[in-house]
């Protein structure tokens, strides 16, 4: 299962101070692990929510530094792209996977897959026995849809103001964090539903 899906900033941006990482969208699937763990029994619901937000922020920061280091090592600087060039932006994206140890920040060990498209990162946090090939394909697909339907290559703020579109996208392609084995026909069918929703 996928534990969470995030969209966050990954490189120095003029709008933010150095090293700061802004989470633009986050969706944690399933029950809150703090509810079922021994050590967090005494937390109030507000504290649990805070804990979850902090965990998400930790993941975002880890990916932020992973992307920075990866781009530094490869020497490739992302090329500015404009709306309309989504496919190219995706092709040009950096990708990688990192390991999060148990307890840091999730109770179990997790694998974090990320895609760095210019100044934004799209991240999937997967449980250990997950099929990473499938996860990689799903992440690319999700990213492509987000870039297209939310016009993310432009300077708009749709990712903030139309987050329900991402929710619907996730409910079709990653329902409750379940990765799906979709051949092109099944995928087409779901994408038609998503497109119909986005058009409203």
């Amino acid at each position, binding site marked *: 299962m996928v534990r969470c899906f995030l969209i966050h900033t990954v490189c120095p941006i003029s709008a933010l101070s150095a090293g700061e990482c*802004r989470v633009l969208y986050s969706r944690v699937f399933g029950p809150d692990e703090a509810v079922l763990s021994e050590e967090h029994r005494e937390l109030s619901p*507000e504290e649990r929510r805070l804990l979850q937000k902090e965990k998400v922020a930790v993941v975002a920061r880890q990916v932020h530094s992973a992307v920075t280091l*990866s781009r530094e090592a490869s020497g490739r600087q992302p090329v500015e792209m404009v709306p309309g060039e989504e496919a190219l932006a995706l092709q040009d994206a950096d990708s*990688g996977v990192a390991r999060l140890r148990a307890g840091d920040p999730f109770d179990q060990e997790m694998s974090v897959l990320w895609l760095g498209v210019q100044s934004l990162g799209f991240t999937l946090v997967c449980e250990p026995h997950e099929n990473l090939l*499938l996860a990689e394909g799903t992440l690319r697909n999700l990213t492509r849809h987000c870039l297209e339907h939310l016009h993310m290559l432009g300077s708009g703020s749709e990712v903030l*103001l139309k987050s329900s579109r991402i929710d619907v996208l996730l*409910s079709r392609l990653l329902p409750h964090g379940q990765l*799906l084995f979709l051949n092109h026909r099944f995928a087409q069918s779901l994408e038609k539903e998503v497109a119909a929703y986005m058009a409203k």
Partner: protein
Amino acid sequence: MYSHASESLIKQAREIQEPELQKFYSRLVKLLQGKELGHETVDSLQRLHLILSATKYTRTLPSELRTRLLSLLSSPVEQLQVLSSAVLREMAPLSGEELNYIQENVGQLNSQTAALLLSKAGTRADLSSVCAQLLRSLDNRPSEGSANSLMHVLPVLNSVLTHSPECLTEDHMTLLNKKLVDWLRYASIVQGGGASSGRFFTGPRSRQPVPIAELDGTVSGDFFTVLCVGQGFTEDQWMNVYSFSMLHHWLLTSHSASNGNTTAETDDRSEVDGSVVSMVSATSSSSRLLPPKERLREKAFQYCQRLIEQSDRKAQKKTDTELQKACLVEAVCILDCVCVEDASLVFRTFPCIKALFGRLSPDLSFARVLLPIAQFYLNHGEMAALDCESVWKLVLGQFPAVLFNDPFLAHELLRFLRLNLEKLQLRVPQYTHFFPNLLKFLAWDSPAVVDDFVDLLPSLVTPATAVELLHTLLDLPCLSATLVLQLRSTCLPISEPGGRGLLSLDAFRNPSFRGLFLFMLRAEAGSGDTIDRLSTLHDLLTEAADWPRVVQCAQTIPVLLHIYFNTIVTVADEKLLAHLILVMLERSCVLLNIPTYIKEIHRVFSCHLLRLCKLHPSLVVDQSHELLEFAGIPGNVYSKEEIYTHVVWVLGEYLSVSCDSRCSVRLITTCFETLEAVLFEITSSGSLPGAVCPAPRVITTLMSALAKLASRSHDLIPRVSLFLSKLRTVTRGGSVPWCSDEEDLVAIVTRGEELWSLLKAPGVAQSILTPSPHITTPQWHRDTNVAMPLQLRALTSLTHSQ
């Protein structure tokens, strides 16, 4: 992509003031009271979500707004369901009343409501009730309602299974096992209607049902799987996809959870004749007699076999080719899983896995599929008497050498090694010899995999390969540069004019240096600890010292060296440790010249030299010749200050008869003379103006070492005392050329005076500077003077409340 406008939106959402917020809430309530909920409502809901999610502190909504939002959960408009669920997820948990409301009004739990209930569940009981509700809806098929309404049930159950498997009762498990069997094996084999709702149109002039097709276009001749296509799909075909998607996880968690109860039965029933491998889909009549769990296992087995066969077809679309790969991985994992549960299935499975390995091993683009196959071989290879040699040769010998720059393969391969470490050490003894290959992952992308190596390195430290491993670790930045050059060399056949890496690339292609680089790129250990012309290699790679990849690699080495040394002391004998000390001394000047790298390595060496000598003091006498050689070179005081200081210190501390009976007076005298000569030289006034001063610590360490040695051989005391009094005289005259800082000079002189006065009473000097073991290894609990405070302290901490 992320503009100032977006940033200010978030800031506004966070900093919105209470009065304005209340006004917004009231306006929203009014909007929600209306009959028609149009664009303005949707936009306001969206803004509400932004306001709530932008801050990590939970806001409270007025109860009327909460009630309105709850009612939206059952709205026919999907957008409203989505938004209300998203908003409520950011809030405090649902009260008992609210939960009742949902029970009564939302009827059959839709996907958004289920998500809300899951995320707000406060206890296991809450989760259990969600599961129970969903499973009830599975059992009682609805006569109306959209055909897609059941599809979220399996993902939700799977999600609960991850966190809390005990929320599902035995009955639930049985029901699910049965349903999964139906959907996996008996889904329709005709295409559904064209409409996206998946409904099957049954008009009077409906077309003849069209059978499903395979990915290469041919008509399918067997049961439906995720690799089958059609114009549209029926509901059970959708459930087939959902079932397979969760199958692996279901088998792993649910079956292992309830394994205890049914082992007795399965032993009887697993007398399946392994030699008759009938056509994949032939439903053996005996399977209907199996209990649900075993039946699911059998169907899972058949499904996976079919997938493996289907993956051999040439798909018409690229995305489907990718899916076939993912299906292969999943199928092999599931087969491995069922074989672990039921060992008799191994005999039916391994021919297929073996054939798959044969088919895929030549093609490196299937490397990630070969890893689960390797796992199968590791788990069941022995039982099936499979030849595993070729698998390990591929996985350990070829993959790292060719695919070191594939981050996903690196992650999965290293994970495979980590999870199976014990088994590998048992069944694949040659694993430790492949460290040069495995370290290529680290050399290429240190930040991503260093964490894995922290876990794996101890297993690679063996007495047989220890020395070569140390050399390899120290030269990892060179390997990093070599890999970069290797890739560049294959990508750019013609050298770029004025491009980066020109000199080193030329060197890489130069036949006379080929051997150096080939040694770096070797796959296995055993062909020599290191090369003679190592410094030549370092010179050739000088310009690589500022390549980011090389620098990142260099930054991880100190940590790994610490792990190396911490492990080696547990497995090495004194002879090996002696050899390692020599390696440290030798390599301290033979390192790739990356600015802080050399300093860091020296620091690590110093720390562990100290530790080794402390653990085995006789090493110092053993290696005294080499240590003295090192200590006798005045240049080392400046270029290797850290190590030099520690070498002198260990000589002073451990070159004594109490540490090793082989220590003769002659040895002590020789050592004394060597150190004395260096001390004279570095404190002479003959040094050029503007030259570097020796570090004060070196001087004080030398002085202390000389004093210690003298305390063991009293003839030497006059010589030391003479030097120390001369020192006092010289420094009284003001500044000295070998020490620029006045405070440091005072410290040096003070130390000199202390030693001088100590040496005036040789007996005292000996007991202080060469204390006998019982003083240096106190056993506090036996010492009556010390035991009492310890006892009191222990009692206090026990009686103190936490």
